[in-house]
């Protein structure tokens, strides 16, 4: 490992060098369209234009960003929702001609003074969920897109052959070019395109190119992610961050895009043109100093990234082991963060955008690939991050090297580690029960802990293997559940309850059984089960800060709104609460990190010149959040039945799980049933599993009732026209009419009813059934 203070020119990552004839590859391109444009000067965080590309017609045009759009949707993900609303239909699916793939920035994206200011928000209709999925990602593409003069990029239609899109901010020209000879897998194509499109053959020029790509795995599964590159001048390699969730890379490859290239000229620290650069720099430097002084005593992000969570989750019984059956595991210390620290090549600075001193992006340089097409190559692997390590635990892979290999191939094949890891863990459990077996798995011995089988599965999938299992399995848990049931290979209830998906999307890596609020944090979401809207486990389970349903509903209102705000602005959430001021615990609301909340108010005002306070900041989110929910309803989902979660996330599905935590569950049952513990202990385990099952499922419904009301929705989870008008959508008549009609239909179908069964001592959220009418 390099011990600091060396010239960036001198470091050699020790990776396999590629010998490509880039001139020949480039010469094979045919320019399909060229679009010259006048670059807008960025003003106060906005370029004030979006870029529209249609790959079917090869049309390229610009759309204006209006003040009305900023007022209603703020930016970033909000703009993405607006562009999608204007383009898609309720029956648009991921592979429909009109489906948009949108990459947005946000007004703070591209600033360099505040850590975490380089995020892009990507949106599309997801193959997994059939509704809009948004996914955030670091890397340089978002900032560069804006520096090229666009707040967002919208791609509609499908190319007839493999293409690349080049957004050249140096020459103010956009081209669609055929790209027949480039590689598809990311670690190769991102490097090829970076070399090909950098203005000069040097590291600094390469750093001013960013590439979006996917890989062969994205073509052959519903788990496709978008890899955003950020060229590392020290390692001399295209590093990668992923917009992982929801199959965005699958859509990219369905549109036959091999890569989207953004190239910029030299840029400065005020390229984002803040209204008040001094104020932005001041608040940014303040938090950077906090990171410098406190990170080593808090999260250790600068050394191990999010992998620091592994040991904490294991200690609190929250690390998903063997498909979420257990929250801790005897072998877990083998994959604690220290084990990755030993593997990481710590060549600082390691931020995925300039100025991010939290620097959670870690790499393993010169990693020798052990399996598959790149066996024997030495590569730089970005990560693994906590979620990927969690997938290792879930699949019972307890060797850091195995997890790094899994991470490498997921990235270069362009698939989401979370979705694929969670899904494979489920297939493994089905394998354990004999519901799946070697024959049914296309010859794969997909047992827990079988690293080679996992890698074989990924390689065969990326290779387009036509085996029935590989093809269904690559579409994720939801489709496999239906497939297993159609084959009648096992108990249907077990098949449903054990598979960790909701809305068709796989869960991320936390065990939620003992935190009802976190179950809501996963289920009562827009895009599907992820922890990007709320992470309430400690507040709820460890610190018991939100004991009542009303408290939990308040948290499930506030935190999703607050966390949505990052995506509207092009920010990363981590610098909000993965470092905290030393006196945070003494403030009146430590879970909100009040000082950092104030930072963000100051920061947004400094860049945009707006004059918002922390309440208006939540209002910005509430607008986008409700709009997205309404969009989901409009597409036929986004209702109570869609917010349902599998029982594995609520409690013990099997007797084995119950017995593994018997003391805890017995105690809970004694309380619920108001019976002495001794009596419970003597009861049949199967019966106890069933009692807990009925109780917890009802608790979830009661929680949903409270949350829907708090958010201003009907009992069926539909945003009301009144709420939408209050938020400023009074002139969006089409949406308001739709919602009014939908609520009327729900009324006729008896869906505007409380979902929970309440005992006499329990209070419903409101005495009025149609509570929203009196608002």
């Amino acid at each position, binding site marked *: 490992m390099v011990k600091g*203070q060396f010239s960036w020119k001198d470091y050699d990552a020790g990776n396999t060098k590629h010998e490509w004839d880039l001139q020949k590859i480039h010469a094979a391109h045919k320019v399909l369209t060229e679009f010259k444009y006048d670059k807008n000067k960025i003003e106060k965080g906005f370029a004030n234009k979006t870029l529209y590309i249609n790959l079917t017609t090869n049309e390229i045009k610009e759309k204006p960003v209006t003040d009305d759009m900023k007022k209603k949707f703020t930016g970033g993900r909000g703009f993405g929702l607006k562009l999608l609303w204007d383009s898609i239909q309720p029956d648009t699916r991921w592979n429909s001609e009109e489906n948009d793939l949108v990459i947005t920035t946000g007004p703070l994206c591209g600033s360099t003074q505040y850590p975490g200011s380089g995020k892009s928000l990507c949106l599309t209709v997801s193959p997994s969920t059939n509704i809009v999925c948004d996914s955030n990602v670091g890397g340089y593409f978002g900032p560069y897109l804006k520096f090229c003069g666009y707040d967002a990029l919208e791609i509609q239609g499908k190319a007839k052959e493999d293409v690349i899109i080049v957004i050249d901010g140096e020459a103010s020209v956009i081209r669609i070019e055929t790209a027949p000879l480039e590689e598809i897998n990311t670690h190769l194509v991102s490097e090829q395109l970076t070399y090909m499109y950098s203005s000069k053959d040097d590291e600094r020029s390469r750093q001013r190119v960013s590439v979006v790509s996917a890989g062969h795995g994205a073509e052959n599964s519903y788990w496709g992610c978008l890899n955003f590159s950020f060229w590392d001048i020290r390692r001399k390699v295209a590093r990668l961050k992923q917009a992982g969730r929801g199959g965005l890379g699958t859509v990219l490859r369905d549109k036959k895009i091999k890569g989207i290239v953004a190239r910029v000229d030299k840029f*400065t*620290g005020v390229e984002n043109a803040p209204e008040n650069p001094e104020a932005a720099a001041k608040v940014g430097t303040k938090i950077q100093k906090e990171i410098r002084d406190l990170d080593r*005593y808090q999260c250790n992000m600068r*050394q191990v990234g999010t992998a620091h969570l592994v040991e904490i989750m294991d200690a609190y019984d929250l690390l998903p082991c063997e498909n979420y059956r257990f929250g801790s595991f005897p072998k877990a210390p083998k994959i604690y963060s220290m084990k990755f620290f030993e593997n990481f090549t710590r060549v600082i600075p390691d931020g995925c955008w300039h100025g991010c001193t939290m620097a959670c992006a870690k790499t393993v340089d010169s990693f020798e690939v052990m399996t598959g097409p790149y066996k024997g190559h030495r590569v730089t692997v970005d990560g693994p991050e906590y979620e990927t390590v969690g997938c290792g635990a879930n699949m019972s892979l307890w060797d850091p090297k195995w997890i790094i290999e899994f991470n490498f191939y997921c990235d270069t094949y362009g698939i989401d580690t979370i979705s694929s890891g969670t899904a494979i863990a489920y297939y493994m459990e089905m394998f354990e029960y004999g519901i799946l077996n070697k024959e049914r798995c296309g010859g794969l011995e997909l047992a827990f802990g079988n690293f080679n089988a996992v890698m074989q599965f990924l390689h065969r999938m990326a290779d387009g293997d036509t085996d029935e299992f590989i093809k269904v399995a690559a579409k994720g848990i939801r489709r496999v559940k239906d497939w297993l049931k159609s084959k009648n290979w096992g108990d249907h209830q077990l098949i449903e309850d054990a598979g960790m998906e909701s809305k068709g999307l796989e869960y991320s890596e936390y065990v939620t059984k003992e935190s009802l609020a976190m179950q809501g944090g996963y289920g009562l979401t827009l895009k599907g089960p992820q922890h990007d809207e709320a992470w309430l486990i400690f507040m709820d389970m460890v610190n018991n800060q939100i004991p009542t349903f009303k408290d939990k509903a308040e948290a499930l209102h506030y935190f999703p709104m607050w966390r949505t705000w990052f995506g509207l602005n092009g920010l990363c959430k981590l610098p909000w609460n993965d470092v905290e001021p030393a006196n945070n615990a003494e403030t009146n609301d430590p879970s909100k990190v009040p000082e950092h909340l104030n930072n963000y108010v100051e920061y947004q005002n400094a860049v945009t010149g707006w004059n918002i306070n922390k309440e208006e900041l939540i209002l910005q989110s509430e607008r986008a959040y409700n709009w997205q929910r309404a969009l989901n309803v409009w597409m036929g989902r986004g209702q109570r039945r869609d917010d349902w979660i599998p029982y594995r996330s609520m409690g013990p599905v099997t007797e084995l799980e119950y017995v593994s935590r018997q003391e805890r569950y017995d105690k809970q049952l004694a309380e619920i049933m108001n019976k002495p513990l001794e009596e419970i202990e003597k009861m049949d385990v199967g019966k106890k599993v069933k009692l807990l099952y009925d109780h917890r499922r009802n608790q979830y419904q009661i929680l949903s009732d409270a949350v829907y009301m708090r958010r201003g929705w009907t009992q069926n989870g539909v945003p009301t026209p009144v709420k939408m008008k209050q938020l400023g959508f009074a002139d969006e008549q089409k949406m308001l009419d739709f919602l009014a009609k939908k609520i009327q239909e729900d009324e006729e179908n008896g869906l505007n009813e409380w979902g929970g069964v309440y005992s006499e001592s329990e209070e419903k959220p409101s005495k009025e059934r149609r509570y929203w009418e009196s608002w």
Partner: protein
Amino acid sequence: MTEIKRAKILKFNSEKCVGCLECEKACSQVHFKCDDGGEKSAIRIHEKDGKFQMHVCNQNGLCIDMCPVGAIERMPNGTVILNKNICVGCQACVAFCPLGAMKRSASRIEPFKCISCGACVRACPEDALELVEVDIEEIKQIVFNNYGGANHG
């Protein structure tokens, strides 16, 4: 690449200083082409308990590893310089400087620092400043890189 072993750093003779701040003005000329001194100077003179103190970069070079675009480098003469034409204004070097010697003025987003040019030495009427050569190994500092501060110091 040959290893750079020696660097020139500023030495301050406190007893000679009269607090005229000619050094700061000279420094402002170098960095901002003005006589403002103060926040536009990389060298600062403060009075504490009737004595003058100098606050300036000692060329320890920790900032080199903080720069995401490689704008900070150690020159062959040992001095650490920030190239403002490459800098993207992120302030990581400012925040992480253990001495607070990487400076930023409100008038420009790119930080600036002492480049051991000697302008202040020449400007000082009392000969309170001089440039001395030191061994880089003696002053060098690197970014904290251990596994956790609490357990591993």
